[in-house]
């Protein structure tokens, strides 16, 4: 999991990391695309408390 806060592209403030989702992948086990879980990758979801906009990144 990425620990550095995500920065809002609109206002530059720190976004709130409020969700993770396991996204299944067709990549083979051990590939760079699924190094967090054998069967997929974790995507993080963040929302800015000032702007309300959302963003995602691979965890």
């Amino acid at each position, binding site marked *: 999991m990425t620990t550095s806060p995500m920065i809002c592209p609109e206002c530059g403030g720190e976004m*709130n*990391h*409020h*969700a*993770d*989702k396991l996204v299944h992948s067709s990549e083979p086990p051990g590939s760079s695309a699924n190094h967090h879980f054998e069967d997929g990758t974790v*995507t993080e*979801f963040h*929302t*800015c*408390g000032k702007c*309300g*906009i*959302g*963003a*995602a990144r691979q965890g």
Partner: protein
Amino acid sequence: MAETTNKRLFIPVILGTTRQGRMSAHAANLIAVELAKQSNVDTEIIDIGLLPLPTNNAGEALKHAPFAALMDKADALVLVVPEYNHGYPGLLKHLLDTCLKEYIHKAVGIAGVSAGPFGGVRVIQNLLPVMRELGLVTIFWDVNFSSVQNVFSAEGALLDDSFIRRIDKFLKELIWMAQTLRFGREQVPLNG
């Protein structure tokens, strides 16, 4: 909490069918009118029949940027969905699947529409696991437009005033959930 709840909510109504002569359009119009009466709520109808829905591509290439922007802006969604052979329209599912991050931890309410007596209860049940997988949070009020041909005239006039009260209950629950989830998205950390 006060700052979050004072912000205006954006709750679009998705008209989930492309068929000609769809009675669901009357239901979507009615819900949008009632939504616009709620305080601190902005709304608009998203007619999937007006969106390009390509089926000859995959992944991000299928994404319709204006639709994705509306989903990103939305605090909650209302889906107005006719029941076709116990299921939901395939093009609605196709469109919904083009987004993901835009939906996470947002509220959704579903209005089912049918010509028969069950008011789309089966299509609503079938949509619940889809909503969950998309990261949307369902509410426990629905609107069921059963025998929809008796609810609206051919021109869209409401023939059964009891729907006003039903829709108001549905929207109050949806707005509460939208406010609560917005607070959570903006203020409550996952690992807090």
